[in-house]
């Protein structure tokens, strides 16, 4: 009995250690390969950094436009997926279950299992359709990528909202109702803040996924050397796409090092986004708790 338990706990320990070791190994590997490539030159090439940042001077050999593009796509995806997913999750969990919620539930699961390349193809086909029908000069670009990416990560938001609302004790609902709160007041002021932590993990998952996915953006508007996009309908550069092209086509060790440097930057950027999301959640929770 005792040895059995020991073996069991050892196994659990080992399993818990594995992801830590994985992340650690990955970061060390990236740092080793990419650290040397980090520097202003990686970001801006030959262009003076201040000109690039404040005067939008074109950057030819740097990843600055790609950083901007990735931030923009991730932001647009978050703008699409977070509100939509939140309200969808609320609908699925807080409204009486009918035939529609069954269908919706099924669709969300289907969407969650959709490979990202299919989502990219969908975006591409959507533009072709629009060109042939309503908008003859529609093209790929930031907005289309952001929308398709939002669709890709939408299930994470819906499922995490649904699960964290569903995990709340029934008393909490009854309490608000018993005090005379309307349904929307109960949801807004009691249930959503109580489920904040779970919803937040959905936000983090969505942001991470939207920042790294390459298949969707490849078919919907990311191109090499596009420079900074001039608008929502313009093509753009993106970090994952840059990394992908470098990995496939590099011609010198320096170029490869740039690719690793870009990977490090992407990792740092998503970390920054996570921290921002947590900070926001923390501030909201504090406001809810202390008034």
């Amino acid at each position: 009995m005792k040895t059995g338990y020991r073996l069991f706990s050892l196994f659990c320990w080992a399993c818990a250690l594995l992801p830590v070791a994985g992340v650690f190994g990955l970061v060390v590997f990236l740092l080793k390969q990419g650290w040397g490539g980090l520097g202003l030159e990686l970001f801006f090439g030959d262009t003076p950094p201040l000109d690039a940042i404040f005067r939008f001077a074109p950057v030819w050999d740097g990843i600055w436009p790609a950083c901007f593009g990735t931030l923009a796509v991730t932001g647009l995806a978050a703008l699409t997926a977070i509100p939509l997913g939140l309200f969808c999750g609320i609908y699925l969990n807080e409204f009486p279950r009918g035939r529609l919620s069954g269908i919706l539930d099924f669709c969300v699961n289907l969407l969650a299992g959709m490979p990202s390349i299919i989502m990219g193809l969908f975006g591409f086909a959507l533009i072709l359709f629009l060109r042939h029908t309503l908008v003859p000069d529609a093209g790929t670009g930031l907005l289309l990528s952001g929308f398709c990416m939002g669709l890709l990560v939408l299930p994470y938001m819906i499922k995490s909202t649904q699960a964290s609302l569903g995990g709340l004790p029934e008393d909490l609902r009854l309490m608000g109702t018993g005090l005379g709160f309307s349904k929307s007041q109960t949801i807004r002021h009691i249930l959503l803040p109580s489920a904040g932590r779970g919803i937040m993990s959905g936000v983090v998952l969505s942001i991470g996924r939207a920042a790294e996915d390459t298949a969707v953006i490849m078919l919907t508007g990311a191109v090499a050397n596009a420079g900074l996009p001039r608008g929502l309908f313009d093509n753009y550069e993106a970090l994952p796409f840059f990394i992908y092209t470098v990995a496939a086509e590099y011609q010198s060790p320096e170029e490869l090092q740039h690719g690793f440097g870009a990977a490090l930057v992407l990792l740092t950027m998503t970390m920054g986004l996570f921290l921002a999301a947590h900070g926001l959640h923390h501030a909201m929770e504090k406001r809810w708790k202390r008034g």
Partner: protein
Amino acid sequence: METGMNTVISIRDLTVSFKDKKALSDVNFDVMPNELTVLVGRSGSGKSTLLRAVNRLNECFEGCETSGGISVRLGGETLDVYASETDPERLRSRVGMVFQAPNVLPISIERNLLLPQKLVRGIGGARAREVMERVLEDVGLLDEVKDRLKQPAGTLSGGQQQRLCLARTMALEPEILLLDEPTASVDYKSVEHIEQLLLRLAPTLPMLVVSHSLDQTRTLADRVILMREGRVAGTWSRTDHDAETAFDELLSTTF
């Protein structure tokens, strides 16, 4: 629905079922003003369902069907609780309820009292704080919490939490109070505190209280309604002839 001029709550032929399982059958009784009415009975006898029928909280449970009628006297007017034009949210804010287990929000003590006032009555600022202090004083909690109002309500003891819940309901200035075993999960000192408070409030605030304790029923009740298997099995009133013996007789079957 016809009611006597003076009744505060009038229940007529009330039947409640959940998914075809009957929880209450043909319940009839009145709650008079200036009388503290206590509902007693074994668990599963329908006391809580009866209480929740008065503020239409049963509707939050799946498969609930209610027939018969309840009318309540609010602001000098008689309101048919189950009429289609009755707004259940407004009703619930005027007919306050305290649950068996303390259900404070995981937010600060003062926000537990300020948030409902703001959402339900639209009152904030200094006026809401005035109300907060008054109700905290009423439930005997002011001295215990006045220096830690910003702390999470979860740090209070069970008894304090229950008194906070009572204060929260009182802050909405209800015209009728429904209490579902308000002292079931609190320490004996808080029991005494809450009972004294209820006795003090009873002359001005009509109350319907579910109780599980013989002593408490004896202390509080002006009237007792004994429930058994979803029906009224007996009643008692302090004004009954030979009240003391009648009380013992009625409750010997329950406790």
